[in-house]
């Protein structure tokens, strides 16, 4: 398979680019909701529009009413989300939760997927329990109780936790905190008893929660996949999510780079365009190289994942780490090359810096994934 978008994918990219630029742009979405202190941090109307565009159920199989597309396609939408800093539940709902639900029972799929496809439902993912991404350690416990389970523990930095109609929660049903086995994934409905959220606003104006489970009662059919066999589903979900986050990161990197290159062609100092200074030209060219490489590794990882290749796991970490580096460079260079106005809230380049930070941390930063590359490579 060639490492570029085929005809259908290129068409989708055009559509997604136009749609996000028109409807998902910074003025209409990010600033709009931020400046109103919106408790969701995103707009439900846009989510509904994204459903009409066919985006929300892209990864859902055709047999379940979705489009049965792959991660290359989801990544196309995510890149545009990144470019426009569009706040939306797409990554958590349509990529992470949708991947987990692939492993769910027909009953679970029937309960949740139609709402996702219609853009009526929002899902969140509750895996992390500390400020750093450490999915190997799961201490939240689910104990058998009658026909169902009782959930006890706490999850932190659950993105859009308070807005979610359903949370995919990773809990331990047996074994010790650091065991690979003994994990079970649950689909926890928002009205579950004894679940509480502490809402937090993050640097990029997105909303997250610290979520507590205090004997939260769940039906037996809330289990996604097998009891005690959740690690595999969790890994599949995380791999999809990481590749998705990397695609969004490429969009953030490109958006910031484009703004910066435009600025180099507009701002004059010393009687010339600042883009005429070779010191800046070289750095812009270097940045371009890094962003291109990041985009290449992301599409590679997407294709491997869609093909079910074993190496998708390694490449997901390579992609997440490489994109973190490239996008980090892009936003830093962006602010620096804008000079004083780069530091102002009025100008958008700083918003890219903020989003990049949050996205870098989500599902593991460059350090986490560099380590993972070492581990998966056997050193």
């Amino acid at each position, binding site marked *: 398979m060639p490492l570029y978008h085929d005809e259908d994918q290129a068409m989708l990219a055009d559509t997604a680019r136009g749609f996000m630029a028109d409807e998902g742009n910074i003025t209409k979405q990010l600033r709009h909701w931020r400046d109103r202190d919106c408790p969701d941090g995103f707009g439900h109307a846009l989510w509904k529009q994204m459903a009409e565009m066919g985006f929300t159920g892209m990864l859902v199989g055709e047999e379940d009413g979705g489009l049965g597309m792959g991660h290359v396609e989801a990544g196309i939408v995510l890149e545009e989300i990144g470019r426009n800093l569009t706040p939306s539940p797409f990554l958590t709902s349509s990529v992470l939760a949708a991947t987990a639900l692939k492993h769910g029972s027909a009953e679970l799929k029937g309960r949740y997927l139609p709402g996702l496809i219609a853009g009526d439902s929002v899902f969140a993912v509750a895996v992390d329990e*500390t*400020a750093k991404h450490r999915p190997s350690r799961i201490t939240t416990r689910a104990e058998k109780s009658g026909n169902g389970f009782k959930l006890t523990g706490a999850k932190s*930095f659950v993105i859009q936790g308070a807005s979610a109609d359903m949370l995919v929660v990773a809990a331990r049903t047996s074994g010790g905190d650091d065991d690979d086995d003994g994990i079970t994934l649950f689909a926890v409905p928002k009205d579950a008893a004894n679940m509480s959220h502490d809402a937090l606003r993050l*640097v990029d104006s997105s909303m997250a929660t610290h979520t507590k489970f205090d004997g939260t009662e769940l039906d037996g059919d809330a289990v996604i996949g097998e009891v005690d066999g959740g690690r595999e589903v969790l890994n599949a979900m995380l791999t999809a999510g990481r590749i998705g986050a990397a695609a969004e990161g490429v969009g953030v990197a490109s958006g910031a780079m484009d703004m910066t290159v435009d600025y180099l062609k507009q701002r004059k*100092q010393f009687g010339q365009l600042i883009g005429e200074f070779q010191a800046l030209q070289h750095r812009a060219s270097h940045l371009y190289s890094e962003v291109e490489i990041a985009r290449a590794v992301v599409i590679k990882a997407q294709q491997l994942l869609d093909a079910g290749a074993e190496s998708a796991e390694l490449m997901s970490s390579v992609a997440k780490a490489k994109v973190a580096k490239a996008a980090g460079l892009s936003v830093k260079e962006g602010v620096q090359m804008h*000079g004083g106005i*780069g530091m102002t*809230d009025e100008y958008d380049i700083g918003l890219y810096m903020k989003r990049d*930070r949050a996205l870098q941390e989500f599902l593991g930063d460059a350090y986490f994934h*560099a380590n993972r590359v070492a581990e998966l490579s056997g050193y």
Partner: protein
Amino acid sequence: MSDLETFRSETRDWLEANCPAEMRQPVRDDDDVYWGGRRATFKNDAQKAWFEACRDKGYTVPAWPKAYGGAGLSAPEAKVLRQEMSRIGARPPLSSFGIWMLGPALLQFGTEGQKQRFLNEIARGEIRWCQGYSEPGSGSDLVSMQTFGEDKGDHWTVNGQKIWTSYADEADWIFCLVRTDKDNKYKGITFMLFDMAGGGVTTKPILLISGNSPFCETFFDDVTVPKSYGEDCPGFVGEIGRGWDVAKYLLGHEREMISGMGGGERTAAIGTAMKRHSAKTGDDLDPALRSDLAMFDVDALAFTAMAEKFMDEMKSGKGHPAQPNMMKYVGTELNKRRHELMMSVGGSRSLEWDSEETRGGKAPRDWLRTKANSIEGGTSEVMLNVISKRILELPGS
């Protein structure tokens, strides 16, 4: 005991007796820093006591002559004081652009009358100054600035606009670059001093990405600037039309200040603290992050040595006069890296923007603020250009 050792032990005793325990805590919030000025208030009694003790001893500006509000310390004595203060973690009693920027320029270029008046006001924290250099079209290319002062005999009438004027809305007076000769680029600028409350000055705060508004757009609308404030006290520094020389001299001091010398905090190693932090929160450091922290510590500890060498050389007139540009460049780039690493160690907790536990998102706001370090006072690119030109003497630069 040598004189210096006697001085050290006296200083220790004096600090012991006069620096309240609260003033030995790291600066945590903006109001922990005392800036002085007509409208200043103290956060608490300790801040007031520490400031007043230093003011009376001349320790707000220890190396300035006693006649101008300083303590008249020699360079080695000033270094001992710095060392002793940093040993107990004493906060600076007074921070101000008057101390860091205008003061040194007045010491170099001011008349006796200007020194008597303005330096004493600065040392005693009575007047807070701001810096009116940058304009919307003139940032890195400062000398192209357009704010114009029309000669009216005994005064100028000033019109124009400055931008990025830090704390203009809280300052009392401004030191300001004003064009007085449109035909002469370098020799047509006058370095003026005037009261912002005198009429015709408006300030409009600009919101930063960190959520704070520490700087302003500053507009001048027929502002009257007297050529003289009394005997031997002109309303400008240096000569009329030669303000660029003063401006450049002052920038050297600004760069020294921004590069974070003497404060110690910005240049210190952070690995140990970060390890402690992550142990406290129950996170372990990824080995790759640990190695980045170690590389940072190598650079930071080496830079600390550089900073000490630089200060010693500067104070004895030995250093290359363009060296502050290098210090500013390296110091600010290091500080940005420091905050990147702190964000990484903090993880998602460092993303919290307004929660109480994170004191209103102090970590991300501080991190974002550091991005200005390599812009304010001359950008990193400008620093590197100056090094190429003045130190390496590269052609065409």
